[in-house]
């Protein structure tokens, strides 16, 4: 049985997918995950989930955000407006990063 492994680097962070392990049950899956994925990398916590329990939908099946022109919903589109506050500027910068990555891929 295959178990997908998610690693959290530090307390409060996100668990990110980092690979999978073969194991007969959850307890052993956690042990194998700790050995294979938590041995070298900085790790605070690991999650395992049976591979067959994970659903997937990909870009062949549907149009995800960023595939159509929806400039009206990006802070970066309102070029005549300076961000009112630092938290608005921060949000705009995060959005600009995503826009750049979408442009780089297209």
């Amino acid at each position, binding site marked *: 049985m295959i178990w997908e492994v998610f690693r959290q680097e530090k307390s409060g962070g996100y668990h990110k997918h980092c690979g999978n392990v073969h194991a007969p049950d959850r307890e052993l899956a956690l042990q194998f995950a700790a050995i294979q994925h938590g041995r070298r990398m900085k790790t605070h916590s690991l999650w395992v989930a049976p591979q067959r329990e994970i659903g997937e939908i990909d870009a062949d099946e*549907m149009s995800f955000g960023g595939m159509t022109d929806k400039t009206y919903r990006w802070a970066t589109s309102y070029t*005549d407006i300076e961000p*009112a506050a630092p938290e608005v500027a921060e949000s705009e910068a995060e959005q600009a990063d995503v826009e750049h990555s979408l442009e780089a891929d297209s």
Partner: protein
Amino acid sequence: MDLETVKERAGPRQFAPKDDMPEKYRKAATRMIQFHANSEVMGGYLEKPFIRQAPSIDRKLAFSAKVQDEIGHAQLLYRAAESLGIKTREEMLDELANGEGKFLNCFHYPMESWHEVPMIAFFVDGAAMHRQATLKNTSWTPYAHAMDKVCFEEGFHVKHGESILSELMNGSKATQEKTQEAFELWWPRIIQFFGPTNDKSVHNDFAQQVGLKTKSNDELRDTFLDTYVPKAEKYGLEIPEYPRIEYDEAEETYHVNEDDLDWDEFWTIAKNDSEGSHEQIGSRAHAQAAVEWVRESMDSWEQASNTGTPQAAD
């Protein structure tokens, strides 16, 4: 974990669902996050009619995207609240429908004209974002993670709201006057967004001690005024004489004279008992009842099978 340990360890993203948190912490966090989630729903409902009333196709598209965002934020927040193990999502949604669920004061007032729109879309959203940015450092990790996504999206909301304000305040004299009128109506409510002063706030102390909140009501209100008073003035809005707002030269911050605000109205609203409360809660309960059949069919589908292709809302 006992309360003393919680207070010692309190810090940004310190506690997660696997931690054994005391009931007092879990109840306080549930109250706070449920309030936040309810407010996202009610804010979305307040703005929804303006998808139809928007004066141009661009505004219509942006408003439609924004309302979708707000309802999405509510979903994220109900999940974060549910992870505390006190209430289920279903219970919280029912409480909102039957008038027990509490939500932000500003969303208890009906909004009628387009001139009022930037009062919510710029000032209230700006205030919300000002508060939410500090909640990225809340101690309940699922709440902080929800804030990451909420703050990512909110930048567009605030800039879009400001763009509407800019357009109105560069419009005809009549438009400017109507916008000023709307501002005078909403300004005291916007200031009350941050709740009662620290000494009158029932929950503030505990929420700060356990790291759920990182800033007090007073700190947030003052720093909000520091940014948004000059913004209002920049667009030619006149700050009403009351409530009196004074600039403190020594502390370099604005303070509001809180005796000038209508706290009877605020506390009536806090009990969901104003005329507007009944109207807003009633209209949302009506909408919820109208789509009851959708939830019912989803529930029976869930029981019958767990297959099916999910559709992203994009």
